[in-house]
C-alpha cells in the first residue's frame, strides 16, 4: 500500500516533470524539470530496491550530466526558444506515429498486466553494492573496461571539439 502510494506520487512527479520539459520555452527550465524527473526516478529506483543505482542516478545524472547541461546553457546564454516553421514531417507523421505507438504499448501493458504479476523488494540485500560490484568486476569485467576506454575517448573528443581553433 505504502509502496503503491509512493510510486504514484513519484511517478506523477516524473510525468509532470517530463511534460514541463516539453512545455517550457526556456532551456534552463527544461533542464531543471529534467533534474526533477531524474531525482524522482532515483526515488522510484529505491522503491525497487535498487539503492546503488539510485545513488549513481543522482550522482551521475543529476549531479554531473545535468550540471553539464546547465553549464552549457549558462555558457551559451541560451535564450527562449524561437518559433520557426520547422519540420512538417515531424508534425504530420511523427507525432501521430508516436501516439499510435504509445497507445498500442499502453493497451498491451494494461491488458497484459494480470499475467505479468507485481514487483516487490524481495530481500534487504537485493541490489546491494557488493552484489553489483561482483557482477561488474567479474562477469562484466570486459564490458566495464571497454566502457572506461569509451569514456576516456569521449573526454578526449570533447576536449578536441571544445577547443577554440587558433
Amino acid at each position, binding site marked *: 500500500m505504502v509502496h503503491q502510494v509512493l510510486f504514484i506520487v513519484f511517478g506523477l512527479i516524473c510525468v509532470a516533470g517530463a511534460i514541463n520539459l516539453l512545455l517550457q520555452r526556456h532551456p534552463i527550465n527544461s533542464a531543471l524539470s529534467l533534474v526533477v524527473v531524474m531525482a524522482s526516478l532515483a526515488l522510484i529506483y529505491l522503491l525497487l530496491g535498487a539503492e546503488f543505482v539510485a545513488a549513481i542516478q543522482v550522482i551521475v545524472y543529476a549531479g554531473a550530466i545535468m550540471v553539464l547541461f546547465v553549464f552549457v546553457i549558462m555558457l551559451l546564454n541560451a535564450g527562449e526558444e524561437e518559433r520557426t516553421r520547422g519540420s512538417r514531417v515531424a508534425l504530420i507523421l511523427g507525432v501521430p506515429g508516436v501516439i499510435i505507438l504509445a497507445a498500442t504499448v499502453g493497451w498491451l501493458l494494461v491488458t497484459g498486466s494480470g499475467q*505479468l504479476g507485481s514487483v516487490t523488494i524481495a530481500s534487504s540485500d537485493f541490489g546491494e553494492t557488493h552484489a553489483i560490484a561482483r557482477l561488474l568486476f567479474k562477469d562484466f569485467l570486459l564490458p566495464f573496461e571497454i566502457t572506461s576506454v569509451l569514456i576516456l575517448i569521449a573526454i578526449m573528443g570533447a576536449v578536441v571539439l571544445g577547443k577554440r581553433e587558433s
Partner: protein
Amino acid sequence: MVPLSWYLILSAVLFCLGVFGFLLKRNIITIFMSIELMLNAVNLSFVAFANYWNTHLDKLPSGAQMVPLSGHVFVFFVMVVAAAEAAVGLAIIISVFRTRETLNVDRVNLLKL
C-alpha cells in the same frame, strides 16, 4: 506490491514524452535533454525487470538464462554511455553555436542534397 505493468507504463510514457520532445522542440539542447529522458525511461524498465526476474524466475521461458541484477549493470552501462554522449554532444553543440550562432535545429539544416 506494485504491478510491474505500472512501471512499464511509466517507462513508456516517459519514453514517448522524450520522443515528443525530440520531434517538437527547436532548441538543440532541449532536444538533447529529450534523448536523456528516453534513456532514463529505458533505465526504469531495466531496473523494474531486474527486480521482477529476481522474484519471478519461474516465469522465465525454459532454457533461458538469467543473471540476477544484470539489469542494474545495464543501467550502469547506459549511464556511462550517456555521460560520454553528453560530453561529446555538448562539445558539438558548443562548436555548432560558435560557427552558426544559433541553437535552433531548424536553422542548422545544411546536411542535405
